């Protein structure tokens, strides 16, 4: 029998590597939409999360809508509006980034194996994926100079945190603890709106954060 959860997890891992190598912003946004949907479906499939109540199912539906549709479409608008198609001068090159991504994956496997905790059945892979996603998100934020790519990096970081939450908790009493992580999307939304509405574009003629260097000591 094909294990759907693991397929999804591998999909998330692949999306992480793809996003590290993607130079076109449109492609990056599509990858993020895919990752968002996969990340929000995974908790539904994990063992031990069975017997979900009606309210929980609606909650996960909302999650999919936010992570898979709403945020990517906002990003899509932003990319269109600011008329930049690709990241031209990343701080760290694409090949080096992919290599770094692979290295991060290795480290996460190492970390997951060394955390002595009795994870529920099938959660080991979740933890590896989660740590990889989170660390790669961090990496993307630091390695790219465009404001939009940094927001996408943040989004990935947040997906990772959400996955860690689902991997670690046993859902005894804290459904609706991990789920509050979705509020972070609010911040993402605000950041994207910031880019769209104003201004990093108009004020600097480009969404390049290297131009944001006026304030320093």
């Amino acid at each position, binding site marked *: 029998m094909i294990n759907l959860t693991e397929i999804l997890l591998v999909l998330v891992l692949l999306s992480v590597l793809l996003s590290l190598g993607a130079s076109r912003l449109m492609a990056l946004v599509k990858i993020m939409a895919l990752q968002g949907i996969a990340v929000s479906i995974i908790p539904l499939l994990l063992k031990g999360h069975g017997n979900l109540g009606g309210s929980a199912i609606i909650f996960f539906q909302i999650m999919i809508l936010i992570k898979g549709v709403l945020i990517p479409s906002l990003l899509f608008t932003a990319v269109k509006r600011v008329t930049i198609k690709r990241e031209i001068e990343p701080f760290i090159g694409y090949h080096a980034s992919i290599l770094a991504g692979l290295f991060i994956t290795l480290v996460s496997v190492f970390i997951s194996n060394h955390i002595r905790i009795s994870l529920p059945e099938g959660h080991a892979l979740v933890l590896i994926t989660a740590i990889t996603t989170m660390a790669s998100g961090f990496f993307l934020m630091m390695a790219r100079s465009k404001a939009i790519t940094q927001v996408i990096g*943040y989004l990935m970081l947040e997906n990772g945190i959400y996955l860690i939450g689902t991997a670690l908790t046993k859902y*005894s009493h*804290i459904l609706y603890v991990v789920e509050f992580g979705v509020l*972070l999307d609010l911040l993402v939304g605000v950041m994207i709106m910031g880019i769209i509405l104003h201004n990093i574009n108009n004020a600097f003629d480009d969404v390049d954060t290297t131009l*944001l260097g006026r*304030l320093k000591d």
Partner: protein
Amino acid sequence: MIELIFVLPLITGLLPLVIPANLGRVLLLITALLHLQLTVMAWLGKLSPAFPHFFTLAPEGLLILSLTSFIFAWISLYAFSYMNETQISNKPIFNCCMLLFLGTMSMVTLSDHPIVLWIAIEATTLVSAPLIFVHRSKEALEATWKYILICSVGIALALLGCFFITLAMDIASTGGPLSFSYLNTIADSLDPLWLKAGFIFVVIGFGTKMGLAPMHTWLPDAHSQAPSPASALLSGALLNCAFLGIYKVHALMTIAGLGSFSGNVLIAFGLISMLVGAIFITHQPDYKRMLAYSSIKNMGIISFGVGIGGFALYGAFLHMIHHSLLKSSLFLSAGNILLGFGTKRVQRIGGVIRQLPKTFVSFFAGFVGIAGLPPFGMFLSEIIIIIGAFQNRRYLSITLFLFTLTLVFAGVGRVFMSMSFGDIVEEVKVREKPLRLLPPYALLLASALLCIWMPDFVYTTILNSIQMIGGTIHG
């Protein structure tokens, strides 16, 4: 209905969007006074929580709540006059965000549930970002972008920390409500490894918001670019709220028997912040940035004092109170100077004593205060922290602490002297107004008064906040 304390500003915060801007100013003032009244009622014990699982009236929360409320009342009075004399692009948004900011900060002080606390701190980021962007310059945009991006990452990490703490509780498998007061009662059975991991992430996360170095990089930009009433609020109230988040987890750690670990982490962050603050204060060409770096340094002192514990913990709480009062007063005075001269460069400003004599008094008194001289309270709190550190035999830390104090005194002194007594470079454009002078005076007076005579109820509340983790006033 203790929840009224934060629900009220959250509701009235939406009104400025639909009413004229001038009415919005009045609303700001009215809400501030009502909030102050509710806070006093909370002191008198007239309010009880409607959702006890989520909100409670912890002594440390009450202390920070009343500090926030008191400062906000004076700042709203200042803003009443300030808004008419400066270029604020969108006054309704300014009023709205000020009130929502007050509401979310009050929510932080009252929350007992880690996730509710986290949500409230996230909300403070969301509603205070527009305040920084009020002037709509390129610099303001940059400061806002940095603020949102850096604090968002911090908040995301703090959420991870909260997950770890709930995991520590899960492993102990005690099916109680997830709240700090319940966690404190079962602290012994919590899993120490995950608790430690949770603490580290919470310190890094909320520490970003509190301005602890090396996660402080947003703070000088945001504080210098925000309009002065907002800077005063950011520095005097928001940093305390983030501190509260760290303090609650530190208390949990101490009760769980991991106090020395969390204490050492806090001491390390505290020393780094003091050092970074002190280094950047010297030769700082922008006086609002200088005040911001001073905030970083003072947050370092608070974190240091809490980390040492015992007598120094009492000093840390005193320091928090006096820092809030003095720093918000200084930011308001700086606002008067900025209005008068229209520049933030120290070099362009001279002869404040002749041109703005009344502002000079509050500005200079504020300098005396943050330099740690009597009659203001920082004198007392710094001495108490030093004595507490001596009792713990942390001689190296004390040396570093005293070194940074000297450095700050020299750096701040140079700026204040040249601004106050230097040659007049530019003429004043906007004169002083009584409404903009009264608040900084009142805040200074409050600090001096609290230094000389501390009311019993404040004293017992501080004791109640520090007693559970072994804080004491008996050296």
